[in-house]
């Protein structure tokens, strides 16, 4: 991949030995660069993860303590319960819908920002994030006002005759999730569109004549890393979201996020909470790995 051009002045004969050594040095550099994060994540993530992972096989004491001497698979088996699968399925649909809408809204938006002059670009980007430096809870309460009986969204809906009060319904949850996770889609999309090689887009314009075709054939594939990263950053957190659904949706249907939190808190059933979490992580990781195996590209 990384081929050194022969130096025109002082041509060195490239022997296999030299190449191998250069390659080894290169690998070593790559490894060294990753070491700090690697070590950090092993100590502060992998090890703690194992500590909680073992609880998947524990049982719950009468008072809600996880007991480890009584190893069993009860909690793991409960993952096959139809009630649980129903909750999981519902959450996946909601997260998927959130991701798709975020992508559709964020792409043209990021494209617009990325094609401004450099200074404007940075300002526009920072102004995307500023609202999210206010407090999460009061932000959500503000949405409650907007979606409530006298809220502007309700007024608009009633004026158009399309919808009534959205607060405490699923659409309200969806709006809240999109609001919360849209920046997660914008950031990586912006980062990858801003870097596009515009001469390629130009060439495509000349080649395909129509704008949409050039977009589909060149711009879109080139910004794929951003699309993938953004989708991951939106899909996964919205799968686990629970405060927004509780406040805006009225907590009338259980979602995966509430269910897990409930196991760790109200039910004090750490074994079940742990096994659900482990299952989610394994499924997600496998899905990503399979995706990249079949797609043949790393992020």
């Amino acid at each position, binding site marked *: 991949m*990384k081929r050194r051009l022969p130096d025109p002045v002082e041509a060195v004969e490239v022997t296999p030995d030299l190449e191998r050594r250069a390659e080894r040095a290169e*690998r*070593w*550099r*790559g*490894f060294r*660069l*990753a070491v*700090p*994060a690697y070590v*950090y*994540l092993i100590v*502060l*993530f992998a*090890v*703690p*993860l194992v*500590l*909680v992972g073992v609880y998947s096989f524990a049982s719950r004491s009468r008072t809600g303590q996880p007991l480890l001497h009584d190893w069993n698979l009860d909690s793991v088996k409960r993952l096959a319960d139809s009630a649980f699968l129903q909750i999981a399925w519902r959450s996946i649909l909601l997260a998927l819908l959130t991701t798709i809408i975020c992508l559709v809204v964020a792409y043209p938006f990021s494209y*617009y*920002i990325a094609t401004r002059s450099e*200074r404007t670009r*940075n300002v526009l*980007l920072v102004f*995307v*994030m500023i*609202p*999210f*430096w*206010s*407090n*999460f*809870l009061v*932000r959500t309460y*503000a*949405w409650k*006002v*907007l979606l*409530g009986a006298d809220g502007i969204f309700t007024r608009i809906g009633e004026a158009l005759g399309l919808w009534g009060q959205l607060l405490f319904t699923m659409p309200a949850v969806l709006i809240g999730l999109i609001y919360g996770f*849209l*920046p997660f889609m914008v*950031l*990586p999309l912006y*980062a990858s569109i801003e*870097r596009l090689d515009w001469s390629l887009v130009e060439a495509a314009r000349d080649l395909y004549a129509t*704008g949409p075709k050039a977009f589909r054939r060149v711009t879109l594939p080139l910004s794929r890393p951003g699309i993938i*990263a953004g989708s*991951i*950053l939106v899909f996964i*957190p919205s799968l*686990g979201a629970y405060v927004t659904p509780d406040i805006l949706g009225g907590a009338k249907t259980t979602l995966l996020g509430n269910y897990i*939190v409930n196991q*760790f808190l109200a039910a004090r059933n750490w074994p079940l*909470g742990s096994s659900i*979490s482990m299952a*989610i992580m394994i499924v*997600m*990781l496998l899905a990503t*790995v399979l995706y990249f195996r079949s797609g043949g590209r790393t*992020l």
Partner: protein
Amino acid sequence: MTTGRDRSMTTRRLDRILAGHSALVYLFFYLPLAVLVFFSFNDSRFANRWEGFTLDWYRAIPKDQALMNSVKNSLIIALESTAVATVLGTMAALSLERYKKWLGKRTFDALLYLPVIIPDVTMAVMLLIFFTQINQALGLTTIILSHIAFNISFVAIVVRARVSNLDPSLEEAASDLYASRWKSFRKVTLPLILPGVLGGALLALTLSLDDVVITSFVQGPGATPLAVEVFARIKRGVTPIINAVSTLMLVASILLILGSLLIQRRQGSATRGG
């Protein structure tokens, strides 16, 4: 960027549509914020009934020690964890995208994803268990360490979206040009990936300021940040004093950003002039 591009009618029309769309998106972003700011002046402790204008909530801020303390904690936690996570996350992203397969790369790749995938509460419980097992007293340190742990991954994901497909020939030319690797990184690679790094840092900062679940498990006496403080106040109802604090923080960050832009502009013209 746009020079030499075909400025046809359709392009211009498309640009206008995009501008309109973006304006709507910004409206969507700032609409709840307008509500939030509006109710910070509300003469009632409830956020859903307008009872008249007052500045009392702003006056009450300096007197609310717990609140002031939590804002200070939030800033310390957010800035420190963002700085560390941005550096580590960027290095991780470069290593994964720019270097050939090194031993353990696959495992690292997977490990880097897990903090994004794991449910908040599970990460909270595991870190709590971990810190107590190693006898680390709960407090600011444990909060910062935890925030770095999840932020590294978020930074890395955003930076990777930027680094992949970067034209490697530029860097090679640079390493031929500059003797030291560090210099070629600083002069060529960093400017190229900077938008990604900036995006990653912004995301990390936001996540740190917003985190409630993990922080509430690993916090110790007196080390509560704002987000958790607000959550604890839910029981009695969150008063507009939180809106007032949020408003002040928004104003401060906007001023900070405008200020730094001004300085940048002045420096820019100074170097050009000299």
